[in-house]
């Protein structure tokens, strides 16, 4: 399969008062076209920081210190990789929410409580698809069945024709400042709303025209999460990053959302990068899984391989620590705690809790190596 996203030795640090938090330590992962990649780990292991670094939205005092984030947006052209870390902020802005988009953890925090649902969903159309919408409106105006008063029609045709050629023209910007003339955008907003209704309807929300007028507090948690997904899917992204998209929802609603993501993956989106701490969600939805521990990626494998034949001691311990349906025996727990990342342990970061720790584990960090086909692990045992 062709690569879609590749991170190479990504390093992100946070400069806090207590010291430098080494949140990511050379994370290298590959997401293929058409696959669902799951990133699992405990809280504070750097899952969210990884994707935030990919999107370049690491918050202060964090800084991306090194590495590469390469995207291959065009499936056919393999060599045309773009290193996102070298691009301008303007380029990133045009990419975020358009080709790569993200679902955030808490729908309550992701939605603006003072804007209606319609405004929030149509915002991404207004940001990314202005040109297409202008062209569409212009064609509608030129169509013979368009019933607008003749002189008005001529004026609107002129304005929208100009806008569809260059949506960022200076004359349009001047028009936006003039009180009466700024109403020219009415058709654009109407078109964006129409598209918003379409996308919300596609996500299985009953009577979308009504929902569009409502505010986030009118909706339930599952509905809000659907709206957040709608915003993310608005511009048909190539890669959808779901950062704990279901962890605050009830199991029955979670099942609905996962079902929805699976359906969308079949026909709309190409790849999903799913971040979760729930191994169950991973087992059900992902093709490939990466396990993270304390800022390191310690194992990457196909789902069946990882659950059936885990290599890394941390992965094994994690799988034994979760209660399961079929197995009825004492749960094993991992002794100790996740290390403080200001002063991470030298060598392998898991060695203080590892039952198989050797001398070399305390000194140097194990490199990722391919032990079996498509099964990579960073451990000296192999």
């Amino acid at each position: 399969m062709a690569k879609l996203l590749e991170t190479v030795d990504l390093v992100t640090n946070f400069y806090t008062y207590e010291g430098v938090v080494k949140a990511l330590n050379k994370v290298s992962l590959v997401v293929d076209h058409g696959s669902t990649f799951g990133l699992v780990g405990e809280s504070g292991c750097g899952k969210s920081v990884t994707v935030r670094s990919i999107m370049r939205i690491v918050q202060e005092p964090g800084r991306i210190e090194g590495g590469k984030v390469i995207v291959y947006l065009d499936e056919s052209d393999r060599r045309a990789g773009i290193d996102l870390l070298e691009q301008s902020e303007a380029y990133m802005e045009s990419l975020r929410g358009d080709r790569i988009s993200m679902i955030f953890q808490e729908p309550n925090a992701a939605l603006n409580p003072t804007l209606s649902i319609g405004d929030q969903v149509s915002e991404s159309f207004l940001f990314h698809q202005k040109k297409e919408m202008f062209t569409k409106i212009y064609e509608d105006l030129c169509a013979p069945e368009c019933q607008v008063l003749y002189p008005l029609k001529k004026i609107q045709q002129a304005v929208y024709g100009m806008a569809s050629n260059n949506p960022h023209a200076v004359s349009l910007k001047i028009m936006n400042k003039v009180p009466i003339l700024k109403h020219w955008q009415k058709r654009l907003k109407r078109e964006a709303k129409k598209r918003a209704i379409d996308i919300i309807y596609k996500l299985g929300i009953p009577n979308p025209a009504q929902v569009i007028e409502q505010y986030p507090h009118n909706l339930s948690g599952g509905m809000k999460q659907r709206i957040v997904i709608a915003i993310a899917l608005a511009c048909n992204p190539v890669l959808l990053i779901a950062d704990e998209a279901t962890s605050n929802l009830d199991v029955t609603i979670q099942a609905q959302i996962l079902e929805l993501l699976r359906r969308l993956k079949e026909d709309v989106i190409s790849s999903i990068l799913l971040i979760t701490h729930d191994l169950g969600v991973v087992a059900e939805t992902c093709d490939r899984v990466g396990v993270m521990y304390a800022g390191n990626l310690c194992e990457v494998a196909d789902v069946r391989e990882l659950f059936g034949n885990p290599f890394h001691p941390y992965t094994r311990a994690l799988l034994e620590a979760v209660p399961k349906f079929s197995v009825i025996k004492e749960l094993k727990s991992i002794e100790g705690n996740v290390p403080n990342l200001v002063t991470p342990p030298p060598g392998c970061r898991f060695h203080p809790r590892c039952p198989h720790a050797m001398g070399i584990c305390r000194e140097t960090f194990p490199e990722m190596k391919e032990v079996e086909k498509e099964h990579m692990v960073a451990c000296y045992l192999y």
Partner: protein
Amino acid sequence: MDKILSLKNLKKYYPILGGVFRREVNTVKALDGIDLDIYRGECLGVVGESGCGKTTTGKAIIRLHNPTSGHVYYYGKGSNSEEPVDIAITKKFALKRLGIRGKLQMVFQDPTTSLNPRMLVKHIIAEPIKSQERMGSRELEDRVIVLLKMVGLTRDHLLRYPHEFSGGQRQRIAVARAIATDPEFIVLDEPTSALDVSVQSQILNLLKSLQQTLNLTFMFVTHHLLVVKYISNRVAVMYLGKIVELAETAVLFSRPVHPYTYALLSAIPIPEVEHKLSRIVLSGDVPSPVNPPEGCRFHTRCPFVIDNCLKEEPLLEAVKAGHQAACHRKHEMEKLIAENFGQTGFLP
């Protein structure tokens, strides 16, 4: 078996105030008639979606709020009165005088918010003991150290503040505080949902061993069904302020009778790749507890609705010995589920 608590038609309505004079315009029916017996030494799991009244039930038993109506009978072991005490209506000072307060304890969901950040661990754990009995300070400290050892901490942790601990250790402190007064019954309100997987199993194992050594009775409130399966003997499934099914854990997982239980069980993402099952994905959301639907509360989302469900509210009745369900079609449900989904349970 020996009962320890018995809830009879317990109700809790929260008022919604409105209008100029802040009159009561409506009520949120958080608990709408709960009947439940809890036996000594068991661990009763209470599961359900958020807002279904799990925590309200737990708080009503501890009398952290006053129930609107109904009774909570407490059958004390070796208490001076043979008669059960009704916790729901007894005055609060009388509860303390009878020594019931110390016997019923609670562990809260998020240890970061349930521990006072300004108090030392020593004082946090000693506080409930001080309010129950008189004890010299040296004696008290010895007792606190014993409690800390029981939950897997050491005396080094005595003079620290909660923020110096990790999430799992904080929850251990909360457990130590709950067992400080030698309780018989503890409500565990989602004790592991704020914790990571590896720490969650530590706490679950700790709770299990404490239950055996101290002979405790647990009510384990959670939304995580696999945790319930691991720790509890019996499970009560709640939906919109009512219990819809009550059975032993193995029975509930292998032969659920209520369609909601089946949907809930089938919705769990299972951390095993080989395990593929047919799933009922319920449409829609939980209805508002302000105006619960007429008839059976689940009928708006149920795949097996019949006319009777819309009119008459089903009662919690026995299907078999020790297995109760509130469904009009409880006797044919097993067959219906098998026909529609090709399986009846979730245990091998």
